[in-house]
């Protein structure tokens, strides 16, 4: 099997498994006052400190959550509610249309049910949000509740200069949330240096467990809770701390961040070979997103493990099915709740025509990727695309 879908989820690291297994063998609620509780709390707080250090945050800025979706919901809704309560004119959400659905649907829910208005940011053809576009959308900022722009796009891998965006927003007194689920461990992420007010990350994209994530939230950021209860996590996210998951998340994040410089170089080389090999065999295939060698603010302008390609005349789900039958696993982007493949909203947002949006596949590399994976894809991609084209677009 050739696994080229690390952006969906990536294998759990052996050290994560070991650390979590050790915790599962223990008893203790981190909120309890007795010895077992103190031991659990100590482990959780050590994990908080390690995670904070790996990401340039202070330990008190780390809120553990149930994953990326929860963190995005908490940031968008919680900051909207808090900012609107402080000033009822602040009802505008300034959002990139290429965000993950956890952000998009939170914003749309607020618009439908809670008086919010959404201002959609204009995107570069690469999917990037520029400081100028953000400044345009913000105006004087007085009616804006929050900005949310992802650090790196989950489908096409484009990185935005989040620090520059945060500076623009802060000039007019507006807080910024960024979904950094794909960015952590792939590109340098420093919470303090970026200046953002809230940052989403999740464990299972880093070699950690599913169902474990965090929201990094500045001490001075106003954010109302989604979950009320025992007052854990600064009273912003109640719920008994899941100590094994928290340990797993912290081990995964510290390991991924430490390995990043070497791994990024290795994955970028593999990815470049993958893209070059596909384009050599299929010259009409098209790379979506930023150029492979794109540089932004001194770092990579595209995730090193991301290759996103369109194969005009073929349908993404036919390609996926044919590759799956040959043991190669990749992704078309999103599907609706019944499982119907949808044209990617990200490609639509960057102005791709329907055929390009429907004919795209994402190949994403990670810690276990090898040259053999790339070779396996290159050995079958041309006949697969040819056969999918014969099946047509079916519409």
């Amino acid at each position: 099997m050739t696994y080229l879908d690390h952006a969906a989820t990536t294998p759990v690291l052996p050290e994560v498994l070991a650390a979590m297994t050790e915790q599962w063998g223990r008893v203790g609620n981190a909120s309890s006052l007795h010895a077992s509780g103190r031991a659990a709390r100590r482990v959780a707080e050590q994990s908080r400190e390690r995670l904070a250090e790996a990401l340039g945050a202070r330990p008190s800025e780390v809120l553990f959550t149930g994953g990326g979706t929860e963190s995005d919901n908490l940031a968008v809704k919680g900051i909207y509610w808090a900012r609107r309560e402080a000033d009822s004119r602040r009802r505008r959400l300034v959002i990139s249309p290429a965000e993950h659905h956890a952000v998009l649907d939170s914003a749309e829910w607020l618009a439908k049910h809670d008086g919010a208005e959404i201002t959609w940011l204009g995107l570069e053809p690469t999917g990037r949000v520029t400081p100028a576009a953000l400044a345009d959308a913000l105006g004087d900022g007085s009616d804006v509740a929050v900005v949310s722009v992802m650090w790196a796009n989950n489908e096409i891998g484009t990185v935005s200069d989040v620090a520059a965006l945060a500076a623009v927003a802060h000039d007019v007194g507006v807080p910024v949330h960024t979904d950094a689920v794909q960015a952590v461990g792939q590109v340098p992420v420093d919470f303090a240096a970026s200046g953002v007010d809230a940052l989403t990350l999740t464990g299972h994209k880093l070699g950690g467990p599913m169902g474990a994530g965090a929201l990094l939230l500045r001490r001075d950021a106003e954010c109302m809770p989604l979950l009320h209860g025992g007052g854990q996590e600064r009273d912003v996210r109640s719920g008994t701390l899941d100590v094994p998951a928290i340990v797993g998340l912290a081990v995964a994040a510290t390991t991924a961040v430490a390995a990043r410089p070497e791994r990024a170089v290795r994955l970028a080389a593999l990815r470049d070979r993958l893209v070059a090999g596909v384009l050599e065999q299929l010259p009409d295939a098209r790379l979506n997103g930023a150029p492979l060698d794109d540089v932004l603010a001194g770092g990579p302008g595209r995730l090193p493990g991301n290759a996103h390609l369109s194969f005009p005349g073929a349908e993404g789900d036919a390609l996926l099915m044919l590759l799956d039958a040959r043991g190669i696993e990749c992704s078309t982007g999103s599907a609706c709740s019944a499982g119907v493949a949808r044209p990617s909203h990200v490609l639509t947002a960057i102005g791709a025509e329907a055929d390009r949006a429907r004919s795209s596949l994402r190949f994403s590399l990670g810690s276990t990727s090898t040259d053999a994976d790339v070779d396996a894809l290159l050995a079958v991609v041309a006949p697969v695309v040819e056969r999918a084209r014969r099946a047509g677009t079916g519409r």
Partner: protein
Amino acid sequence: MRVLAAMSGGVDSAVAAALAVDAGHDVTGVHLALSPDRQTLRSGARGCCSVEDAHDARRVADELGIPFYVWDLADRFREDVVDDFVAEYAAGRTPNPCLRCNEKIKFTAVLDRARALDFDAVVTGHHARLADGRLRRSVDAAKDQSYVLGVLTSQQLAGALFPLGSMTKDRVRAIAAERGFAVATKPDSHDICFIPDGDTRGFLTRRLGARPGPVVDAATGATLGTHEGTHGFTVGQRRGLGVAVGDQRPRYVLSIEPVSRTVTVGTADLAGVDVVRTGPPTWTGPAPRLPLRAEVQLRAHGTAVACEVTAGVDGGLKLALAEPQRGVAPGQSAVLYAPDPVLGDLVLGQGTVRS
């Protein structure tokens, strides 16, 4: 063989897929998303293609360890089945959407795509026998679906597998239960899948609007009342005519004339026909020589009646029935069978009933 299993989420297609796996085929499951509103949730035996059905189909595929995908055919289905259904009613005819779906969707759109993707056949959970390229009735007479497959050509049948035709529905459910499929006890669907509330007249009125016209008595020519649209009627229909006649004898719809919107009704003695004319036929195998003695079934759950088939006008057929039949509605398929008590009645082909 590389086989594509069309999996609706029901028990029949689940068992058909399982039997295809048992037979040693390389099976891939697909669920056809046909409804424009995929959020619809199933309630009881009504409706199809909901999120829940897709989930049920996926569960079975995962248990079988076969790949599973959802194919979005909602646009094709709307054009070829739903819009056709509405247009046929608007023209005073009575279509069979299941037959149309088999003809245009399952064994054209899906089969063509499957063949292009290197599959050899499409396996479905239809209750009909198919061996050596010949289509026959199911051993389970009550569940037989050969009527709605009668429109398929030999070329289409060459790419079809119907593993359930040789067993009863009870046996199908027993196999599902033995395998632990959660769908083993799922109710059968009875209604038209795109009219989940079962209110066909209401559905058509929403699509076509109210189109009032007269209800006329065939014997006297008298107008007995008015109706809200000819689409509310089918030839042979007895209930819901909205008219009362002094003689207390039941009235049946004899004909529907869409331009003047006249629905003509008459007593039972006028409702029977002994000659049926069809449009150009399709054949499931080589075209038989005419004249031909055969049996004809005139609607999905009708009984077959002996007939003599001769050539009609404009390439159509003329069927002389051995006994008069009520409810021979234009738009329905007249499916011809060669009776065969041993191997199962052989489906010869069909023609669409003309007015």
